[in-house]
């Protein structure tokens, strides 16, 4: 009896640390940043960091669902680059017939969403219907999209027509009440993702499939459909992230979105979602994304660390954040 009581006690403490771990890490980073540079907490800097987090953040919300369902998607960075290239080509191509203006921007946005949906569907189809391992499928599509964008750009850079760039630019740089659009969209995606994960039947199905797909199947959950939906959602979110990305510099090349997939996956894991599936936490993912962006920002704002070591600092903080919320099961 005594041991049982003791077990629940330690378990509760661990649970607290598991929830608090990422938040603590974020608070520590904010304090460090504020102490090191007076401009760290300025409105401009906060707005910069949140806006640039939006690409990875929007994608990472989708990645949370994919990983919770026991899957993985390595193709998102290449997919974003390919969609960005496609979006630019379509808008440039239709410019002579449609003229520069908001209708053409809408066509561009639609292109991104449709392409994202299709790309997500292809990944999902190969993984669920063709029953190929997610790691292999998305490793394959990662290479395919990366090559396609290099090919589309002829090895160089695809640039949006200059006139169109001026029209589309506000999507990244403007907003409401001083809050830029990427931040607003990021917040909306995060809130919807959190609600779906916590409150909707779909969120529970995703966790059930990731936890034990046999049991989920016997509980009359359509396992393949749930898995497929997670990849399609992720594809749509990659499309949305690309819509935020293209207006920033108005260009896409083979170096667009490199390593976004790993940043998104790292953010998801820092946030407390289990890499092997079965449990996901969208708000944790958001904290994870912010932690990753803040590290880069703080390193740029301070002089103490050699830029050669940026990657090392990032690695140490990722591992620390995950150690803080280590699962008891991992030891046994």
């Amino acid at each position, binding site marked *: 009896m005594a041991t049982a009581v003791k077990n629940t006690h330690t378990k509760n403490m661990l649970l607290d640390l598991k929830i608090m771990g990422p938040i603590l890490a974020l608070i520590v980073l904010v304090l460090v940043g504020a102490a090191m*540079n007076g*401009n*760290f907490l*300025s409105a*401009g*800097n906060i707005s*910069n960091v949140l806006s*640039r987090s939006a690409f990875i953040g929007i994608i990472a919300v989708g990645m949370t669902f994919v990983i919770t369902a026991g899957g993985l998607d390595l193709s998102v960075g290449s997919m974003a680059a390919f969609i960005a290239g496609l979006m630019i080509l379509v808008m440039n191509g239709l410019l002579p017939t449609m003229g520069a203006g908001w209708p053409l921007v809408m066509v561009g946005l639609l292109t991104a969403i449709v392409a994202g949906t299709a790309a997500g569907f292809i990944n999902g189809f190969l993984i669920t219907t063709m029953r190929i391992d997610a790691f292999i499928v998305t490793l394959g599509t990662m290479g395919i999209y990366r090559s396609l964008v*290099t090919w589309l*750009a*002829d*090895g*160089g*850079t695809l*640039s949006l027509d200059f006139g169109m760039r001026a029209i589309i630019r506000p999507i990244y*740089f403007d907003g409401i009440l001083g809050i830029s659009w990427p931040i607003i969209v990021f917040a909306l995606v995060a809130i919807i993702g959190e609600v779906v994960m916590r409150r909707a039947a779909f969120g529970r199905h995703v966790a059930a499939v990731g936890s034990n797909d046999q049991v989920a199947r016997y509980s009359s959950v359509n396992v393949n459909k749930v898995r497929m939906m997670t990849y399609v959602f992720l594809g749509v979110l990659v499309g949305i992230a690309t819509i935020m990305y293209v207006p*920033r*510099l108005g*260009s896409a*090349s*083979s*170096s*667009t979105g*490199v390593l976004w997939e790993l940043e998104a996956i790292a953010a998801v894991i820092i946030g407390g979602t289990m890499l092997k599936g079965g449990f996901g936490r969208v708000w944790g993912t958001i904290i994870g994304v912010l932690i990753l962006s803040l590290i*880069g*920002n703080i390193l*740029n*704002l301070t*002089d103490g660390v050699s*830029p*050669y070591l*940026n990657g090392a600092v990032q690695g140490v903080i990722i591992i620390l954040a995950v150690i803080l919320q280590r699962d008891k099961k991992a030891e046994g």
Partner: protein
Amino acid sequence: MKFTKFAGAVALGATLVMPAFAQDTKVIGVSIPAATHGWAGGMNFHAQEAVKRLEEVYPELDFVLATASDAAKQVNDIEDMVATRNIDALVVLPFESEPLTSPVKAVADGGAWVTVVDRGLSIEGIEDLYVAGDNAGFGKVSGEFMVSAMPEGGKIVAFRGIPTSIDNERVAGFEAAIEGSGIEIIGMEHGNWNRDDSFVVMQDFLSKHAQIDAVWASDDDMAIGILAAIEAAGRDDIQFVLGGAGMKEMIARTRDGDTMIPANVTYPPSMIATAIELTAVGLTSTAPVSGTFVIGSVLVTSDNAAEFYYADSPF
């Protein structure tokens, strides 16, 4: 893996014996990195153009062009060229110096002519001809322009590329050129020759420093990201941004008198064409072409920008 490569080699070899048998053609192998960024894209373009042109000029020459996405693939490419095409000359722009040194040395030991481009090998004396960009000179020309543009000195931020010896040589050349001029580098970070990374770094530099007089972007891709960050922040303390490598969009802006981009410093991707042409000359004539050929970095201003604008190139 070995078997398939061998089988492929046999198959390729069988198809390629025919022309070699028909007449005494000489084969030049060209091995370059794939077009993974703007400069490499331009380099690929110029390599293809040179091969196309030379195949017409010299009917007795055959060319094999291979692009590699990493150093290991490039080693395979070179081994395959020797095994299946029995190349008489190799023009190689090494992906990385270390891993390519011994495979290229093996080619040279086998009696083929070797031309190395841009990145040198780890051991000296392997190549017959070295066509090199002048990285220290690139930094020096950039620094000298900074000094002439800011005679009273000022505060600048500097952007570095991917940490490599190329990058170190450029920065060393730049720092030597601005020494004692009153120009102070108040921030230096890696933008990795990437627009997005440079945009982010520049945003943070703008938050950190209230006054920045000029930016040494050192590369045109980075300059584009930097310019976008400056524009978004609405800052007007920055007088100009000095890029480099001569991307055609940036050359056009210099040509058209954009005051934010008053100059550019070349590091021409077309140096691969120089290397291929010289190799062809070496194989087909008695003119000596061995040695080192350094392609200087030239300052481009609005006066001479039109000469450096290549309309067809992707870069």
